């Protein structure tokens, strides 16, 4: 069976996961990424997801997924329980992003974090010209309805990682799923970081 192709930002995350790794995907949704990793990379995966029907869908795919909240439930996991902990497109919805990041690198030997880049030129231009909170392809919901409460730019994230004393193993800026060659904080709509403690 050929696995369904991944969403571009997930493909970038998946590329950073080694074969056969033990993986925890936080905010795993209906389990698309975990199922892909299991079927193509022989990964032993677990997931955490807030939404009950997404959990049901993921369990229906044969995945071990627990309904829970990354803001509160990560503390229950032992140190270095996973080779890789993934937080894709979820950090900006966390109550306490720095605490969550600290948990990621505690639970996982490495952490892969992807997030929408608020420094992208369209965001900057939209805010500068219209004076309104930007609504873009990667940030499609208006400010009062969005679950995203902690936006950051790629430069902000890099600064937080440094401040927390984390090692950035790899970093990439993506635009429409493709890696941008230069000025990622301006040209990328998504940032992807591989971190470790």
């Amino acid at each position: 069976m050929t696995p369904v192709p991944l969403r571009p930002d997930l493909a970038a995350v998946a590329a950073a996961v080694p074969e056969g790794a033990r993986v925890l995907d936080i905010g795993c949704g209906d389990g698309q990424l975990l199922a892909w990793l299991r079927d193509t990379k022989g990964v032993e995966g677990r997931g955490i997801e807030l939404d009950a029907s997404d959990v049901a869908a993921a369990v229906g795919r044969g995945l071990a997924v627990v309904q829970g909240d990354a803001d509160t439930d990560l503390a229950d996991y032992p140190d270095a329980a996973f080779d890789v902990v993934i937080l894709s497109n979820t950090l900006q919805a966390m109550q306490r992003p720095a605490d969550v990041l600290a948990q990621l690198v505690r639970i996982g030997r490495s952490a892969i974090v992807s997030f929408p880049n608020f420094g992208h030129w369209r965001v900057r231009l939209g805010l500068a010209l219209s004076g309104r909170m930007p609504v873009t392809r990667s940030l499609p919901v208006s400010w009062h309805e969005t679950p995203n409460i902690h936006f950051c730019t790629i430069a902000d994230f890099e600064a937080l990682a440094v401040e927390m004393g984390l090692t950035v193993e790899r970093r990439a800026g993506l635009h429409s799923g493709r890696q941008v060659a230069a000025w990622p904080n301006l040209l990328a709509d998504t940032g992807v970081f591989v971190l470790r403690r």
Partner: protein
Amino acid sequence: MDERFGFDRRVTLPGDFPLAGGGVLPELTIAYETYGKLNANATNAILVCHALTGDQYLASAHPVTGKAGWWTRLVGPGKPVDPEHWFVICANVLGGCMGSTGPSSIDPRSGQPFAMNFPVITIADMVEAQARLLDHLGVGTLAAVIGGSMGGMQALTWAVNHPARVKKVVAIATAARHSAQNIAFHEVGRQAIMADPMWAGGAYAADKPPAAGLAVARMAAHITYLSEEGLTEKFGRRLQDRDAVSFGFDADFQVESYLRHQGLSFVERFDANSYLYITRAMDYFDLAQPHDGNLARAFAGVQSRFCLVSFTSDWLYPTTESRRIVRALNAAGAPVSFVELESPFGHDAFLLDAPEMNRVVNGFLTA
């Protein structure tokens, strides 16, 4: 073996059956139902464990009430546990009153019913009795053990006490221990039975049971299976067959009439002494107790995959209890899935139509 759907089976396994509390039963009879066919490698067996007042009539008509099986929403043709694919086993628990050895059974040593001479049993004893049945049926490893409420306690105990015999565990609306509130409600029920003069120290004749006491026990327990929201929606303050309150102690309110009916119909099919013994077994249940209260250590040797489901309005075994189990399984490194499903129906939700639960169980069993 007779393969008719849900043929009422019974087996007596001779020899001592030692119990966790130190007692010994001289022999063990287990009444059970099976659906489907065990495959050649005996790899498709699923054990379903029933709740406090359940029985082996999982998906076939009850011989006393004539009602359909108690979990036909989950088990049956086209359901997640389809006898077309699975060999499904459900046994009346040890201590029960539908054919398995219990307080109403005849003690072969005295020729009289055990009554209160029946030894106090535990959830682990119930599981050992099921293990003996599986040996008898030629089932080594279970593809899955599934249970809700007290059945979930048995399912968890299976994974802990027989790690190599269980591939998957589905534990629904359950807990890894009985809380003070759980024990308190059970004590009300037991005291209601024992306060009935007809109970006679447990030595009542089969045709003269402590019906009033058992009915009250059931009424109190039944409230814990529902939710305030569900009761309000179903009954509110509506009156029963009258336009005004009677200024008396008749069942003026529909909810009173309903509870009385629940109590009365329960005594038709359940034994009071069994109720005492089974509620006691549940009160004693605490998987973490042998590990100084550390549940993760209780799960340290498990080899099963786990699926837990709770319901939002279940206050008998609330979501916090399921989450405690999930946390401990995560800490023990066991693969676990968990979902809390929306329902207004309280603890009983697991026995009602729950399409999301079926979807989860189906996915978990199929994967």
